[in-house]
């Protein structure tokens, strides 16, 4: 018996004794299943494939390269081969627009799709965009009617702009079957990815901000002693609430860990093309998202912004208060800096980010903290603001948690312009389905890709352990995501047109606040006023209707 087979059996819950007792019968089944074509063969092949792709290149063996991406793309091509004949798309030219952040996203897609191109005969040209250029490029293409791409990597917040304007192609049934949409985590199922009841999105990512922390800080005896000596309440440990995050961040100022300057939480005050707003959001949701209210950004009746209510102002004030205790140049740090140049490079002990931090911690050459990272859902708050009563409430259940489902994950969308050419349409959807395949998803979540888990099947810890991940590490990482996805009080981002305009204008005002040129309340009021103007400009009634729809109200 191969070691991998043994581990797989263990993974599905068989004991060592049970395996030995049934080895004879298993051998007989294995011997005959090839002839009979039993379903078990396919299962075994699938499991074997998943195990094999996770060994490319192997956890702890450096960052994957283009050769690895092509290899994985080739290994995951079986689903395509079942629906497409070899060379069927010869002569078809497709254009694919997506990101190239951190040399990920499109850079990986190229490798994954190279074997698909070789097999099908189609050819793909690429439009690579930096994160900050993505939204304007897409908006211009939409507004000027110059959609010059057939496939689009896009986040669900843009569905109002694209699907709502009839620019996307409706997903054929054969694609739904190929990508196994039932396997998606619940919060990514309809209405996400759909518009007016039609399905448009092949998910390749799930998104939430989780809480990444340094375990060496929170097990440090010296810090534990200092914590007690300074009279702080409770034991020294990982903060579970934002109140504690603030306390720990201020406490760590001026201390050292392992001979290095200790730094607490890492805020991202510098603008990041609108995406920086998510990081204020992650600090604010525990204050602003009440369990009895789906809304947290705007009022559902009027579209009136909540950004200047006491909950959001408190989150802004928290950042103002924490910044002097953070790294010396924190004011010039954007989210990319906090995750990749600070946290993974050894500066700071706590950061909120998407799953990329955990996925890169042990598989990226630039990470130096892989052995000392722990994960949790975003911290909660001892009290939560109730907009209906206008009062802060302490919940009987304890601290209020509201994980921020920031961006709802990337998906691949096929544009409606391919619909007039059936061959091209099939080719585009086949390419999208290949990228959204179940097995490929396991690999993209396990290695640096820009994507995190979005399928239930990705949460099988044994698979990750067999790939070389430490069980405690990966259990914490996956739990931080699944507990966020499945949280009853998750803060779901509204899928309304122009959402990044709201975020971008907020970034400008927040930059002034964090630089000390305005108070938290004045800055928040200015953001609210700017948001009202945007809502009026975009059409209040339409925005309100879409906002309600996105909340399921």
């Amino acid at each position, binding site marked *: 018996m191969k070691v991998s087979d043994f581990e797989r059996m263990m993974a599905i819950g068989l004991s060592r004794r049970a395996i030995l007792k049934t080895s004879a019968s298993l051998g007989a089944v294995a011997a005959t299943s090839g002839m009979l074509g039993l379903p078990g063969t396919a299962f075994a092949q699938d499991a074997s494939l998943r195990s094999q792709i996770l060994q490319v290149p192997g956890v702890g063996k450096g960052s994957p390269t283009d050769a690895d991406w092509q290899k994985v793309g080739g290994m995951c091509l079986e689903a395509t081969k079942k629906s497409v004949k070899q060379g069927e798309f010869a002569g078809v030219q497709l254009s694919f627009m997506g990101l190239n952040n951190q040399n990920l996203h499109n850079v990986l897609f190229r490798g994954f799709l190279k074997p698909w191109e070789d097999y099908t005969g189609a050819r793909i040209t690429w439009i690579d965009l930096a994160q900050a250029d993505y939204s304007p490029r897409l908006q211009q293409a939409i507004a000027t009617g110059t959609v010059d791409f057939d496939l689009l990597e896009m986040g669900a917040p843009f569905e109002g702009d694209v699907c709502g304007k009839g620019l996307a192609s409706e997903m054929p049934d054969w694609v739904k079957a190929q990508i196994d949409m039932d396997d998606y985590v619940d919060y990514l199922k309809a209405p996400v990815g759909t518009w007016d009841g039609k399905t448009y999105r092949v998910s390749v990512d799930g998104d939430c901000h989780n809480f990444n922390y340094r375990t060496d800080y929170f097990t440090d005896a010296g810090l534990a002693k200092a914590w007690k000596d300074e009279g702080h309440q409770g034991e020294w440990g990982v903060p579970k609430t934002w109140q504690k995050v603030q306390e720990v961040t201020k406490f760590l100022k001026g201390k050292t860990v392992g001979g290095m300057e200790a730094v607490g939480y890492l805020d991202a005050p510098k603008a990041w093309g609108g995406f920086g707003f998510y990081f204020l959001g992650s600090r604010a949701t525990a204050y602003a998202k009440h369990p009895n209210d789906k809304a947290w950004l705007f009022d559902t009746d009027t579209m009136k912004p909540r950004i200047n209510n006491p909950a959001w102002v408190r989150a802004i004030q928290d950042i103002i208060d924490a910044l002097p205790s953070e790294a010396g140049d924190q004011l*010039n740090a954007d989210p990319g800096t906090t995750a990749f140049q600070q946290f993974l490079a050894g500066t700071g002990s706590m950061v909120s980010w998407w799953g990329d931090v955990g996925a890169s911690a042990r598989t990226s050459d630039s990470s130096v903290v892989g052995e000392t990272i722990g994960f949790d859902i975003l911290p909660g708050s001892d009290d939560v603001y109730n907009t209906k009563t206008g009062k802060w409430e302490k919940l009987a259940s304890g601290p209020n948690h509201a994980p921020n489902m920031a961006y709802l994950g990337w998906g691949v969308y096929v544009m409606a312009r391919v619909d007039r050419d059936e061959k091209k349409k099939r080719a585009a959807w086949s390419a999208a389905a290949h990228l959204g395949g179940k097995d490929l998803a396991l690999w993209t979540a396990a290695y640096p890709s820009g994507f995190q888990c979005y399928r239930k099947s990705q949460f099988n810890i044994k698979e990750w352990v067999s790939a070389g991940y430490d069980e405690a590490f990966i259990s914490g990482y996956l739990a931080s995501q699944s507990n966020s996805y499945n949280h009853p009080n998750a803060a779901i981002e509204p899928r309304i047109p122009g959402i990044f305009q709201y975020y971008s204008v907020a970034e400008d005002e927040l930059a002034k606040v964090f630089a000390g040129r305005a108070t938290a309340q004045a800055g928040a009021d200015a953001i609210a006023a700017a948001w009202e103007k945007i809502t009026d*400009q975009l059409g209040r009634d339409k925005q309100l209707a879409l906002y309600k729809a996105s909340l399921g109200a």
Partner: protein
Amino acid sequence: MSHTVTPAISPVERTTVQHTAARRGRLLIVAASILLFAVLVLQILEAGGVTALGLVSWRSLLFAYIFWAVALCASQVMIRGEAGQRAVFVLPAILFTVAMVVFPTVFGLYIAFTDWNLSAAAGRRFNGLDNLRALFADVYFWNALLNMVYYVLSVLVQYAIAFGLALLLNTEIKARKFFRVAFLLPLMLSPVAVSWMIGKSLMEYRFGPAATLARHLGWDNPAFFSTPWLARTAIMAMDAWVSIPFMMILLLAGLQALPSEIKEAAKVDGASGWQSFKEITFPLMLPVSMTAIILRIIFQLKLADIVINVTAGGPGGATDTVSSFIFREYRDRSNVGYGTMLAEFYLVIIIIFVALILKGASRWMQREN
């Protein structure tokens, strides 16, 4: 020895040929103009939804304009003969400028008076003076304009350094040619590359060599971009590093063109080095200096790339420029109408400002002479 005999054309025949060519020329330009006008009308009707001819883009109008431009050039030759041939030397440049500069500016003026957000359900709407009123009330614009005053003033510092370097390279120093090339290298680099190499690498707070050196020199917290004036100065320094070579090369060319006899005469008369510079070199270099400063100011008014890459306008708008603000308004917020108003208004400011500088410089130089 052979003779080639050209058949003589009588003046009457020549006149007849010219008249025929002129008539054909007029016909050509009239036909081309009608075609251009017809395509324009069709495009407008198509855009307005009146017709459905499948004109999905305005490309057909572009082709009609190109055809009309070629017809105009040909007709000039046909109608005006040699005078038309002379005109054809200039016409393509004029037509190109009209298409690429004049038309976009005028069309931009129209856009500037519309409410056009790319995400808006209603599309583009004329909104009168609303954008202009919003501009006058926009604290971000005026903050960026104030920053531009600081950035423009920094050109004087750049000029002083560039003049010093030019004087140095104009003397008989060792390895002069090497230094000339070495000092020119920053000019050959893209400001975007400089942003990353210097702003995001050398000056990086944690591991950047400049920050490390600053720590060795006793600066505990070498954060170059975290306080307003320090960040502004750091941006000015990076911009100066790219731009000083440009001024230096202009000034060096001017210095090399100066007649050496005057300086030699001053030396014979016992003038010191400072006196020679103050009374001879500097005044003689005034025309070149003014040219270099004005050109640099024009470039400086467009400063954006380094700011966008390094600070995104922060901290708190301290390093923001008008161009980087327009970039943000247009790109991040898809606010085309207002963004265009900002750009057009800034263009007017630049034109007035540069015209005033030129006028002032001209008067000052006349007085000096």
